[in-house]
């Protein structure tokens, strides 16, 4: 069985010292005990570097090293092939290790000696179990490594204030700390009773802006039922969706963005994101492995989804309107070629240079901003003035504006459009134009 780094968390408790072997450029080895090894993520460990040690010197010349860690519960040993990557002298991880090292050193009366100089980050290339004579208990995975990973993801979520950053922190955390590399987050469009994709990881296309109706598929069902839904073996489930080839041409024709997805998914899980009794969105994770999501994975993901929902709700309720934008002088110097923006009023779909961008409220928002730019030469706008604009006919959900703007911003990025939306502080946005737009409106 493949041993994952997170399965070895019992080896990183600092109970039984780890060992590191390095070699200088002439091949002369150095072998040393380590005071502290920390799990960084599923592919990295961090080593404290208190002294200008031979280890530190060696790995800077020859990054290959061997690490031996011991499970404090049964003495089983694991050999890690590691490679030195970089050194850190500050940051969250550094502070965390410095605090732990101070506490541990004070206990053994070496507080002054063990001052942390830096931490060295190593990539883990391979993990092997060292042969053991003790029966067959050669591998005892940690009881629930998911929960320490979830704790770290939740801690990072609690630092974020902006919805886009909350989503990114969650999806990056799932990939880097739980090893779930194929995921997406959808937010609830409360006016339309639909969900739209606001971020994803691990797909060829991001699918940002793709929509799912309530009750539709695993994601829609999780939203409608407000319960996690898990499928552990999809080999007999026909995936109609995967037959649809998604392409720009297809988007242009249907004015619909396809949901991303793994064509060979075997396991899928969709979790509702609920806060304050209100459905905020859905977290969806999938894997090409059968039975990829254990009961504990399910629980850890539910905790993360709930925490993200709370952070999103708080972000929405604290959304500030920003001070009204000053009329900036007409920007006549816009360099670059002219480009064509077409707006179809009946569904508010917007095409840029004949490429479908988006429809609905987000489309209406973009056209509104573009009109103001063309009429007044302004590129900066406050959320407040957008909210109050009559021609926008915004749905009566005050807190949805931020997510609409986020969706629009990400879709513009995704398409590499000549218009980009830039957030310039809380409650304010700016249009960045790579050419002169020509707006054509079809009533």
């Amino acid at each position: 069985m493949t041993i994952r780094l997170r399965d070895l968390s019992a080896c990183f408790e600092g109970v039984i010292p780890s060992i590191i072997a390095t070699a200088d450029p002439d091949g002369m080895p150095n072998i040393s005990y380590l005071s502290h090894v920390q799990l960084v993520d599923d592919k990295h460990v961090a080593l404290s570097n208190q002294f200008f040690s031979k280890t530190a010197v060696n790995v800077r010349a020859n990054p290959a090293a061997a690490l031996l860690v011991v499970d404090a519960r049964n003495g089983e040993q694991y050999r890690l092939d590691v490679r030195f990557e970089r050194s850190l002298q500050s940051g969250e991880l550094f502070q965390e290790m410095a605090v732990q090292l101070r506490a541990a050193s004070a206990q053994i009366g070496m507080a002054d000696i063990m001052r942390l100089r830096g931490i060295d980050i190593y990539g883990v290339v391979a993990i092997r179990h060292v042969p053991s004579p003790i029966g067959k208990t050669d591998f005892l995975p940690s009881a629930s490594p998911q929960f320490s990973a979830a704790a770290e993801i939740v801690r990072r979520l609690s630092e974020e204030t902006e919805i886009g950053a909350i989503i990114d922190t969650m999806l990056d955390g799932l990939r880097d700390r739980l090893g779930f590399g194929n995921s997406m987050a959808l937010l609830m469009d409360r006016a339309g009773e639909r969900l739209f994709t606001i971020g994803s990881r691990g797909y060829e296309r991001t699918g940002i802006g793709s929509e799912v109706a309530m009750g539709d598929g695993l994601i829609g069902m999780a939203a409608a039922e407000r319960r996690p839904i898990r499928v552990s073996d999809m080999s007999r489930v026909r995936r109609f969706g995967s037959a649809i080839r998604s392409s720009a041409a297809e988007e242009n024709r249907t004015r619909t963005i396809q949901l991303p997805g793994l064509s060979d998914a075997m396991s899928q899980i969709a979790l509702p994101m609920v806060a304050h009794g209100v459905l905020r969105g859905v977290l969806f994770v999938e894997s090409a492995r059968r039975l990829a999501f254990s009961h504990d994975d399910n629980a850890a993901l539910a905790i993360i989804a709930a925490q993200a929902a709370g952070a999103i709700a708080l972000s929405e309720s604290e959304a500030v309107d920003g001070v009204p934008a000053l009329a900036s002088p007409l920007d006549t110097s816009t360099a670059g070629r002219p480009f064509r923006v077409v707006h179809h009023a009946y569904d508010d779909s917007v095409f840029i240079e004949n490429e479908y961008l988006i429809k609905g409220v987000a489309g209406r928002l973009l056209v509104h901003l573009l009109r103001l730019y063309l009429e007044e030469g302004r590129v900066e706008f406050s959320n407040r003035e957008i909210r109050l604009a009559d021609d926008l006919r915004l749905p009566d959900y005050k807190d949805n504006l931020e997510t609409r703007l986020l969706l629009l911003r990400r879709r513009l990025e995704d398409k590499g459009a000549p218009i980009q939306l830039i957030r310039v502080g809380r409650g304010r946005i700016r249009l960045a134009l790579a050419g002169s737009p020509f707006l054509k409106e079809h009533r």
Partner: protein
Amino acid sequence: MRLDQDLANFTSSAVMIILGTSNDALQPEIGRAVGAVARPEQGEIDLVLSVWQWPGTVSNVRANGRLSVTFARPSDYVSYQAKGRAAVIPCTDEHLARAAAYIDATSAVLADLGLGREISAPWLITRDLTALSLSVESVFVQTPGAKAGQMLQVGR
């Protein structure tokens, strides 16, 4: 080089013995020994280990002879590292007797520190023992602190 007698005594006591080697691609390897026999006059230390458990260590020594060994006292972290060239030699009766005595003594010391035999058993094994005869070229203080890495003895 002649080894300091105190150091020789230290290597033969109930200390943890860890081995560092590297292959020709400069990939390091780790092993543990279960006993050491020092001959201070000759500047040699024989290290007894399980080739079943640490095959990489034995094949590296066989290939290029490079060997480093750190002796660390579990109770207070006092540590020394010896470096030099080694050869793989068959175990003698003295080696086997040393390994048996070492495992008994070290198990007891570790048990006193709260690591019972059920924890230390995977480190202290006697399956397929062989020995590495190290010709020491240099010795370093490895105890954590300001003197760590300082050379204690160097060969001519």
